[in-house]
Structure formats: C-alpha cells, structure tokens
C-alpha cells in the first residue's frame, strides 16, 4: 500500500508527521546545544556578557585547576555511592513486590513518592535534619547534645538516595516481572544451593534492568544541583552547583557553558559505554 502513494504524497505525509516535532527538537534542543558549545569557547566581558576572543581557555582553566577536578571527582563519587545504596535498597524490594500478592498496591506505594513534587521531597529532608528536627529530637531524647546535621554531606547522600530510589525500582521491577523462574528450579534440580542457584539462574536475567536502573539514577544524581544546594549549603559543591553559580552570581556564562559541556560529555560517554555493553536495544529500554 505504500507504493500506492506516490513519492510526492509520501514526502508530504512524512513532513506532516515528522516535520513539526523534528523542527521543534532542532530549534530547542540541537540549536541551544550548539550555542552552548560556541559560548564555551568565548570569554567573559566586563559586564558578564559573552565576548570574543574565542579559544579553549575555559576548558584549559577547568582541567588545570585542582579545585574543578575535585568537584568532578566529588560529583562522580557521591553519584556512584548514592547509586550503590539505591541498588542495595531497591534490588531486594523489586523482588519482594514481584512476589507479593498485593503487587499493585505496593507498586503504587513506590510510585507516590516518585510523583510527589521533587522540591517537596528534598525539603522533607531539611525538616528531618534541621536543628530542631526529627533526628535531633531523637538524639536529644537519648540525652546526647544535638548535632549540626545541616548542611552536611550525609544529608546530601540521604536525600539523593531518597529522590532517585523509585527511578531504579520501577525499571528493575519490570525486569523481575519477566524472570523465567523455571531456571531456578532447574538449578535446584542440578543440586545448586540457594545462593548459587540464585546467582546463576536469576541474577543474570536482571542484569539488563540493573544496568538501565543504574544509569537512570547515576546520571541525574551526578548532574543535580538542587539537593547539594539545599542540604549541602555551599559545603558540598558538585558540578551542577558550579554551573548554576556561573550562570547566577558569578556571571561567567562562558565558563559555565564549558562546565556544562564537560558534564554533557561525561553523560554521553556513560551512555556510549552502556550502548556498547547492552546494544542499541538497550537505549530504548532506558526510556
């Protein structure tokens, strides 16, 4: 039936369906990225505006200053360990939900915090960690002096784990749902003990979901500035905070653009590694 429509008619239909969306993505995703690339090669004018000369100076500054290397390292470090904690919390949870009789209810219990406003979720931890907050009431109830819990790296970790936990549980749950449990019985029949049977028959089936969930959590955890801003209070500077600062009070858009390009390059590198291990199909599974 496709032959029935002439090439001209077909072109018209392609343009009609793809055209508007593709044009929008070109204008508001591709063009801004290219502008950011150009801006990252420019300099800061006396009023903070973008001016020539062009050059790699922003990148040179970024990579030659130990402070910025430390910020990158800290972002990756906090992102990595938050993700590890999320996996430890979320992996068994996905199994528990999949095997429960009340799957739907339990799933809803995971989804509610996921759909609760992001800022409210972060703010909730301020309430828990603040000087007269829940944690300190517990501490003082035991007769100990109240602790300065805000701002702190601990608070940043807890809120990051809290914020992104559902992002991991949901895709992993989808993978657990599809598990072929007969393999587990086969492993038992062959005389494997529970841990080995799980490791050899069930675990490999969850690896794609595990990878997808890991990336879905790791990328936003590395790129966020809000959590570190509100709970780290300037003590915990991540690359996201650095970018926000350059576009805010520091008024150095050129350098901020360079830092954004570095963050974007790190993300694309991570995705490329993921696509290499999981194949093209893996990218579709991610979203």
């Amino acid at each position, binding site marked *: 039936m496709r032959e029935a429509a002439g090439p001209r008619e077909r072109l018209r239909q392609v343009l009609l369906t793809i055209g508007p969306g593709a044009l929008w993505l070109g204008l508001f*995703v591709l063009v*801004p990225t290219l502008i950011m690339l150009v801006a990252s090669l420019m300099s800061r004018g006396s009023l903070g505006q973008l001016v020539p000369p062009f050059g790699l100076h922003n990148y040179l500054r970024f990579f030659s200053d130990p402070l910025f290397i430390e910020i990158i390292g800290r972002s990756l470090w906090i992102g990595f360990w938050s993700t590890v904690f999320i996996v430890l919390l979320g992996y068994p949870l996905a199994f*528990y939900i999949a095997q429960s009789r009340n799957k739907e209810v339990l799933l809803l219990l*995971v989804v509610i915090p996921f*759909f609760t406003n992001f800022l409210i979720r972060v703010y*909730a931890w301020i309430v*828990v960690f603040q000087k007269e907050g829940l944690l300190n009431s517990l501490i003082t109830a035991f007769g100990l002096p109240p602790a300065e819990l805000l701002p702190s790296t601990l608070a940043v970790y807890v809120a990051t784990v809290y914020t992104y936990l559902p992002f991991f549980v949901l895709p992993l749950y989808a993978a657990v749902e599809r598990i072929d449990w007969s393999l587990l019985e086969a492993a038992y029949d062959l005389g494997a003990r529970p841990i080995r049977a799980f490791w050899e028959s069930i675990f490999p089936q969850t690896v794609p979901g595990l990878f997808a969930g890991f990336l879905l959590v790791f990328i936003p955890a590395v790129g966020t500035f809000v959590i570190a801003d509100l709970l780290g209070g300037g003590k915990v500077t991540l690359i996201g905070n650095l970018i926000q600062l350059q576009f805010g009070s520091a008024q150095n858009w050129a350098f901020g653009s360079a830092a954004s390009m570095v963050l974007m390059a790190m993300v694309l590198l991570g995705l490329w590694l993921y696509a290499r291990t999981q194949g093209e199909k893996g990218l579709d599974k*991610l979203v």
Partner: protein
Amino acid sequence: MKRLLSIHAWLVFAFLYLPIAVIVALSFNQSRFGVRFTGFTFDWYVRLFNNERILEYLTNTLIVAVVSTIASTILGTLLAVGMVRYRFRLQNALRYLLYVPVVVPDVVMGISLLLLFDVVRDAVGWPRLSLFTIILAHISFQIAYVTLVVRARLMLLDPALEEAAKDLGATPWLTFREVTLPLIMPGVVSGALLAFSLSLDDFVVTFFTAGPGSTTLPLYIYSSVKLGVSPEIHALSTLMVGVTILVLLLGTLFWRKRT
C-alpha cells in the same frame, strides 16, 4: 529468607514515607519551629488560602502545564507515528536527538535554553523571560517523553489494520483518525499524563527560563526554603502530596476498569 526480604521491604517503605509523614504532621502543628507537637491547628491552611500570591503561582504552574502538555502531546504523537510508519534519511539522527532531553541533566537543558533565549533576544529584542519561555522550554523536554511512550504503543499495533483501512479506500487522514488514533489512544493519554506531571514537577529548567512575574509553585517553594521556611509550606506540600495520591489512585482505578 522470605522473612528477611519482607523486613527489608517494609524498612524501605518506612524510609520512603517517613519524611512525607513528618511534613503532613507539621502542617497541623501549632508550633512555628521544630518538630515538637504543641497542638493541633488548621491555621497554616487558612493562611495558605489567604495568600493571594500562592493562587497566582498555582495559576502560573497550571497554565504552563496545560499549554505545554497540549502542544507536546500533538507534536510528540505525530512524531511517533511518522517515525514508526516511514523510513527516511536522518531517521537515526532524529532518534538520538530524541534521547537528548531524556538523558542530559536538567541543569544543562535549562542553561542551554537560557542561552538560546538570550541570543535570540539580543538579535531581535524578543522573547523576554516569562511564562512564554517556560512553556517553550517545557514542550522541548516533554516531546521526547510523549514520543517514546506513544511509539512503544504503536510498535504493538498490527499494521494489517491500517492496511485494511487503506484497501477499503480510506485516505491517510481518515485512516489515522478512525483506525490508528483510537488504537494508540491509551499511549497518547499516558504520554500526556506523563508530560503534565513532568511540567508540574519541573524546577530546574523552569528556574533558568523564568523571568520576573513568572513564578511557579516549585520556584516559590525553592525560594521559601532558601529564605527560611514558613509553616505554610508544610500545608502547601501536604495538599500537593494529597493531590498526587488522589490522581494516582483515580488513574489506577481508571486503567483497571479499562483492562
């Protein structure tokens, strides 16, 4: 083993709900500071409803969410249909472009749009940062999500259904309206709901593309937290959590009825 798994699960659920419970409890607490409960009150809710600015911020939030959801649902659905139905040059490039808003951190998306608006404004004196620029920005990330959700639904469709319609002499537009669209409607609705909730939730992209007079609820919560919170925020948060739960419950019931 099974016992351990269940203890673990309920500890995680406690972790997920503890902070939300604390906020809800505090929204009814008479005391302005701390978590010690000094008495039950509705005062913070009364104050919230008498705060006219909040009503304005809520209106802004909803204007942005409704307009951007309608636009992105139309653009994203068409895009998904075209991408599944036709092979064309640059298809792969378009696919990768679609992933960008999904995977790139919000802060990068926000500042790149800020740069775009700034460059265009320097050139032609327009547009000022306002609700309008926020809407443009929200559509830009929503399209990707709508397209991916609708595309997943389209790939489950039997192409024979559309071919049958065409064999019977239906025009492409008639086929789309009478056959394809009804069949992918669940995907379109899911995509629209996702786009809507992404817009309501978004803080970071809004933060960079908002101007004076275009404060949304997330922006207001952020500045309140920065300046030192008033208990009105507890009441506002509790209401927002309540609406979230209500919408999700209704949604679940709705889908269950359909299937």
